[in-house]
């Protein structure tokens, strides 16, 4: 594997309380390291987005938290339990939307599938399930195998939400949803969060689709976290700097390791840098660069900067 690049962004969220933690979590499929010493921390009540490219280990991580994958090293704590040996208890507290939309019994009707789920979750709120079904325009008489990708996703979201679990694990929840349904889903999730105390982990490679909901961000690549921090800290600490630079300009040494992404031309730089705004501006100015503008970046831009910066190094 590649040498560990020192993380430019913080990865420690402090003392919690956390709904989910992993320490040094490792999982390997054959010679492929899907998770490579992962320290995940999801604070209670957070909406934590797990960003990363396909194959970064997002689904493996979520399935490990569900007790569906056996990990090989490290430790996992989900709602106070280790899913490896108390999987049933852990799953009782989780609403899960799996990555695969072809999920569930193809031969069942949607109504029967919802009934099935209700039996397994004593906290099932039938009235809420009915309301969600109506908002999503789900026909309970349809056979599951006759559902389109988007319809399946909607059914899966109802299955995950209607028992009002303390933890939601949503693996690419907006995958396959058109714009209108995606918008409706965000609205449903907003109301759900307002009505029931819930910790949410959303895995996605398209952050912009869920960005307004998110308050914590973890960027995952190669089975490791490149950064894990509250969204507000990300917006304050990770900024984009535009500066005019003289020909043959050399960057200041104190910025090494903090520049997440370098863009620009010979005379103008567009750098995404982690650090205190004034200190970075001063550093650039003292090195001869004329800082023209500083702007925060969106969660999506931050993820792109971190991930592409990693590829470049």
């Amino acid at each position: 594997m590649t040498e560990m690049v020192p993380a430019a962004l913080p990865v420690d969220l402090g003392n919690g309380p956390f709904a989910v933690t992993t320490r040094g979590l490792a999982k390997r499929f054959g010679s492929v390291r899907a998770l490579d010493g992962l320290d995940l921390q999801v604070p209670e009540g957070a909406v934590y987005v797990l960003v990363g490219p396909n194959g970064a280990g997002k689904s493996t991580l979520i399935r490990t938290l569900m007790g569906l994958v056996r990990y090989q090293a490290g430790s996992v704590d989900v709602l106070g339990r280790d899913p490896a040996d108390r999987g049933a208890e852990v799953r009782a507290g989780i609403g899960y939307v799996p990555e695969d939309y072809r999920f569930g019994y193809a031969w069942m009707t949607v109504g029967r599938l919802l009934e099935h789920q209700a039996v397994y979750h004593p906290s099932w709120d039938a009235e809420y399930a009915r309301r969600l079904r109506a908002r999503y325009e789900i026909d309970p008489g349809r056979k599951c195998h006759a559902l389109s990708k988007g319809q399946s996703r909607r059914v899966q979201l109802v299955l995950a939400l209607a028992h009002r679990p303390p933890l939601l694990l949503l693996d690419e929840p907006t995958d396959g949803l058109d714009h209108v349904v995606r918008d409706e889903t965000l609205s449903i999730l907003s109301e759900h969060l307002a009505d029931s105390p819930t910790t949410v982990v959303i895995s996605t490679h398209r952050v912009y689709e869920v960005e307004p909901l998110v308050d914590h961000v973890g960027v995952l690549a190669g089975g490791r976290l490149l950064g894990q921090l509250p969204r507000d800290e990300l917006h304050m600490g990770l900024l984009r700097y535009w500066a005019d630079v003289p020909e043959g300009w050399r960057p200041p040494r104190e910025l090494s390791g903090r520049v997440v992404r370098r863009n620009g031309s010979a005379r103008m730089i567009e750098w995404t840098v982690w650090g205190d705004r004034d200190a970075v501006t001063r550093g650039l100015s003292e090195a001869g660069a004329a800082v023209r503008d500083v702007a925060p970046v969106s969660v999506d831009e931050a993820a792109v900067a971190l991930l592409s910066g990693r590829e470049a190094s």
Partner: protein
Amino acid sequence: MKIRLSHADGRPLYVQIMDAVRSGLVRGSLRPKDPLPSVRDLSSSLRVNPRTVSQAYAELERDGLVQVRHGKGTFVAPGVRPEETERPRLAREVARRALADASRYGLALADLMTALGEMDRKVPMETTAHGDNS
């Protein structure tokens, strides 16, 4: 109260919500003792995390603009004088952003002042329309 959030804005979402409330006060669509939308309704219609709305309301309460009455909702504080405090404050914020935008294009404060002065004389309607877009 109409609120539109912009993800390209760059400012935190809760700050944008606070500004929308301030703008409502300045324009008179929100008056002292008026109720604000509930956290649930506003977060649902904006598709944001309810915590973001709560945070905005909490900050507004700290600024003395609103009162959170538990179990009843959030209301504009009775003693608020938008003309005296919020109008200049909002104007300063808009000016600051215009200035930042100008410097991004390599313009100086003087360029901006000149342009603003000309605009105000020539196309008053346009400026009004622009100022009323939220």
